[in-house]
C-alpha cells in the first residue's frame, strides 16, 4: 500500500489529439501531476466528460473513464456517485458543455452539493464544432455563426456557481503550472461539489482570449492570486491592493502610492459576498481573481442522503415482508 504514484500512473497509451499548442495539454499535465500527488489509486478514480474538445480528457487519464453526451456529464457523474459514493469522481467540460447545453445539470450538481470535482475548461469559444461563439464569449465576438459580432452578453461562471449554492468555487489558468495543481488539490480535498474554472486558450479559434493570464510575468499585473487569510494584493512588486467595499459589494483598488499590503482587504474564502465581488471584477485596472474564491463546506448530498435514508441491501425475508404489506387474504 501507499506506493508512490507518478503522473505516469495516470497516463494512458492513447495518443493525445488536441491541436498543437492547445491549452488542454498543460491542463492535462497539471491534472495528472495532481492525481499522483493526491495518491488515490487509479482504479478508484473516475473521469466523466460530455462532448467538446475538453471532453476527450478521460481517454488520456488512466482511470475509469466515461465519455458521455453533450452537456450531461454532471448528471452521469451524479449517477456514478449514487451507485458508489466512495469513488473519486472528476467531471471535465468546456464552456459549451457546462454553461450552455448542460447548464441545468451544472446548476443542480452544485446546489445539491454532489461530491464531484468539476473542471470547467473555459476557452470562450466552441472549438470542436469549428469556432462558433460560446456563452462565455465577449459581446462582439465574430464567429461563423455571428459574422457581424455576437450581441448576447456572456455568463460569469463563478458568479453563476455562487448563485447556485456552490460551496467551492475556484479559478486558475491552463499554463499556470505553479498555481493550477494547487487549486485542483484543494478542489479534490473539498467534500461536495467543487467548481474550478480554468481559463484555457484555444490557439485555433480564440487565440489570446485570456491574454495576460497565461504567462507568469503578465499575470502579476492582470490577475490577483487570492489566498485565505492573506491580503488581496497583486503586481510584480505586490504594490497594488484590493478593498472590499461592503456598501456596494464591489472590489476597489487601494489608493495609489499607499502600502497595499496594509490597506488591502484580507481574503476570507468563507465570505460569500466577497467571493461574489472577487468573481465580478471588471474594467479599469481591476485584475481577474484566481485561486480559491470561495470554500465553505457543508454536508455533501451523499452524506446527508445516507444520514436520512441509510442504504441497506434487501434480503429475501425483507422482500417477502414487503410483498405482504397492507392487507392479504388466504385462499384455501
Amino acid at each position, binding site marked *: 500500500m501507499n506506493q508512490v504514484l507518478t503522473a505516469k500512473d495516470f497516463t494512458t497509451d492513447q495518443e493525445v489529439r488536441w491541436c498543437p499548442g492547445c491549452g488542454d495539454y498543460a491542463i492535462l499535465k497539471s491534472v495528472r501531476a495532481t492525481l499522483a500527488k493526491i495518491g488515490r489509486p487509479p482504479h*478508484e478514480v473516475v473521469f466523466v466528460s460530455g462532448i467538446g474538445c475538453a471532453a476527450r480528457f478521460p481517454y488520456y487519464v488512466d482511470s475509469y473513464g466515461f465519455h458521455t453526451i453533450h452537456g450531461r456529464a454532471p448528471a452521469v457523474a451524479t449517477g456514478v456517485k*449514487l451507485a458508489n459514493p466512495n469513488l473519486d469522481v472528476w467531471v471535465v467540460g468546456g464552456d459549451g458543455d457546462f454553461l450552455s447545453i448542460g447548464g441545468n445539470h451544472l446548476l443542480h450538481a452544485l446546489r445539491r452539493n454532489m461530491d464531484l470535482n468539476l473542471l470547467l475548461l473555459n476557452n470562450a469559444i466552441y472549438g470542436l464544432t469549428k469556432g462558433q461563439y460560446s456563452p462565455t464569449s465577449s459581446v462582439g465576438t465574430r464567429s461563423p455563426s455571428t459574422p457581424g459580432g455576437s450581441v448576447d452578453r456572456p455568463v460569469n461562471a463563478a458568479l453563476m456557481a455562487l448563485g447556485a449554492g456552490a460551496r467551492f468555487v475556484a479559478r486558475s489558468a491552463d499554463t499556470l503550472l505553479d498555481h493550477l495543481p494547487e487549486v485542483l488539490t484543494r478542489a479534490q480535498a473539498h467534500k461536495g461539489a467543487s467548481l474550478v474554472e480554468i481559463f484555457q486558450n484555444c490557439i485555433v479559434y480564440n487565440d489570446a482570449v485570456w491574454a495576460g493570464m497565461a504567462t507568469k510575468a503578465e499575470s502579476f499585473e492582470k490577475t490577483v492570486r487570492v489566498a485565505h487569510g492573506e491580503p488581496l494584493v497583486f503586481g510584480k512588486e505586490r504594490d497594488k491592493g484590493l478593498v472590499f467595499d461592503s456598501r456596494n459589494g464591489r472590489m476597489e483598488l487601494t489608493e495609489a502610492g499607499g502600502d497595499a499590503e496594509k490597506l488591502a482587504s484580507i481574503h476570507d474564502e468563507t465570505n460569500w459576498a466577497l467571493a461574489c465581488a472577487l468573481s465580478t471584477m471588471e474594467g479599469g485596472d481591476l485584475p481577474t481573481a484566481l485561486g480559491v474564491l470561495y470554500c465553505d463546506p457543508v454536508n455533501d448530498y451523499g452524506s446527508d442522503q445516507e444520514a436520512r435514508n441509510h442504504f441497506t441491501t434487501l434480503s429475501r425475508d425483507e422482500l417477502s415482508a414487503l410483498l405482504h404489506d397492507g392487507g392479504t387474504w388466504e385462499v384455501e
Partner: protein
Amino acid sequence: MGSQAAAAIDDQGSHDQAAPERVVVRFAGDSGDGVQVLGAEFAKSAALSGHDLITFPDFPAEIRAPVGTTFGVSAFQIQFGGPKVLTPGDAVDVLISFNPAALKTNLADLRDGGLVILDEGAFTKRNLAKAGYEVSPLEDDTLATYQVLKIDIARRCGEAVADTGASKKVADRAKNFWALGLTFWMFGRKRAETQKWITEKFARIPEVAAANLAALNAGHAFGETMEIGRDVVGQPLEASFAPGTYRSITGIDAMAKGLAAAACCAGIKVAYCSYPITPASGLLHALAALRSKGIVTFQAEDEIAAATAAIGASYGGALGVTGSSGPGIALKSEALSLAVSTELPLVVVNVQRAGPSTGMPTKAEQADLSMALYGRHGEAPIAVLAPATPAECFQTMLDAAAIAIRYMTPVMVLADGYIANAAEPWRIPDVADLPDIAPDFRVDPENFQPFTRDEKTLARPWVRPGTPELQHRIGGIEKADGSGHISYDPDNHQTMTDLRTEKIARIAEMLPPIKVERGVERGRVAIVGWGSTYGALNAAVKELLDEGLEVAHIHLRHISPLAPGLEDLLRGFDHVLVAEMNSGQLCRLLRSEFLIPAEGVNQMTGKPFKVATVKAAIRAAINKTEGGAS
C-alpha cells in the same frame, strides 16, 4: 321507472333477481370528494370477500378543479365477482353520484335498468347550472330508464357526524365514507378492515377519524334500516382463485415491488432516477417510500438528467432505472442511444398517456410503441416488454432487470395510465421461487478488454469502477470490437452495428414460445394485443368462444424481440386482428415483420377498450369472409 322517493324502490319485475356473475359499480363526484379513497376501500372489501376484481380510477388532471364542474369530476369504477374478472366492465350496474356534474358525465355508461344513487342535496340550482342542466334531471325524464335512489347524503352524514363534535367542514368531507357504508350494506360487506384503516390513517387527527367512522357506520345503518339496494343488483359470485396468499395491487405498486425484487435477486443496488410526470410519478413515490432498502431514488432536475444519472449509476455498478411518460421518454431518447452504444444495463419505464405533446395526461393510450422500438438516432435496438395486467407488472420488472443485466442492454417497459392505476388481486409469489439474476461482474484483469463478448448472449463484460487493474474508458463514439478503442473503421462499424442488433435478437432464445392466451390454435380470427388491452380482448374472445366461434386471443408481452413461434401461430388464422389504443403501431410491425395482412382495431379515446367493441370487430371480420364467400 322515473325518479322516486328515497328508499322506496319499486323493483318488481324490473330486473333479473338471479345472482349476476359480476357487478360493476362506479363512484363519481368532485375531485375533492374523496372518490378515489372510497373506491380503493370498496375494492379492498370486495377482495377480502373473495371476489375477483379490476378497478379503473378515472380522475381529472386538475388537482382541485372548481367545485361542481364537469371537468372536475373524478370517478372510480370497479367490476367484481367471479369466477374471473377481466375488465373494469363495459356498462355500469350501480352509479353513485355525488353531484349533478358527476351524473352528467357518467350517466351514459349506466346500463338500462341500472341503479343510480344520488346525493339529492347536491342538486341545487347553482350546481345544476355548473353542470349545464337547464332542467333538473330529477324532474324530467333523464332518469326514466333507470332505478333511482335519492338520498340527501350530505345532510344525513352531517347528522350522524354531529355527535362526534366534528366541524361542518370535516362532516362534509366524510360523506364518501357514508356512501361507502351504504354500499357495504348493499353488498353484505364487513366494516372491520375499513374501520381499522380509518383509525390508522387518521391517527394524528382523531376528530377526522371519529367523523369518518361515524359516517361509515351511519351509511351502513341507513341501508340496513331502509332495506335498500341489496336486492336491486344481487350479490355477485365469488372468484375461483388458485390456493395461496393474495393481496390487491395496482400496476404502479407491482412495478415498485418488482424493482425491489430485482434489487434483492440481483444482489446489487437499484438506482431509480426520475423526474415527476403524470402518470409515472407514483412509481417514484412508491420506491422512495422504501427509504433506500435495496433501492436509492433520485429526483433529477429534468428527464435527461434522470436518464443519464441512471446510465451513470449502471456504469458505477448499480442497476440504473429511469421512468417517465411519453413526453419525458422523448427527452431521454439521446441518452438511450448512449446506453445502447456503451452497452450498459438500463431499465426504462414508460407509463404511457394520451399524446401527442401534453395530450391528456391522466388518460391512457398505447401510442408510444413506435417510439419505444424506433425512437432513437442511429441504429439503436433495445428490448421492449409490456405487462398485460396490473399484477403482471411485478414479473415484468423482474424480467426487464434480468434481461438488462444478462444482455447488457437498455430495456423499455411499456405500461400505461390505466394499468398503472388499476388494481386487481395478486397471488403473492414465494420469494424462494424468484430467480437469481445476479450479474457476473468482471474482476479478472487477465486479457481484459471492455468490448469482448459472451459467446451465447453477446454481452460485454460489466466492470465496476473501483475494481483494481481494470481501468478502462467507454463512450458514445464508435468502439473497436473487442478493445473498445475509438474506431472509425468502416468494417468495424458494420460489425458493431450487426452485433448490437444480433444481441437483442438473441434475447428471444430465453423466451418461452408464444401461446394462445385463450381459444383455438387455428381458426377464423386471432385477435392480437399487447399491454393493458388484455382484459377486454380476453373477455371478448371468451364470450365468442361460448357462442361457438373459432377465435383466439394472442397477447404479446415481448415486442422486441418477439417471442418465438409467433409467425406460425398467426398464419393458422383466416384473419389476424390487432387491437391497440393507437392507430396501428403493432399492426404495422407484424405486417412488415411477417408479411401477413393483419388488420387494425384501433381506438384513441383515452379510455380502455370495451368488450363489446372488440366483439363487434371480431364479428365484422368473420362476416366479411362469409359475405365474400357467398
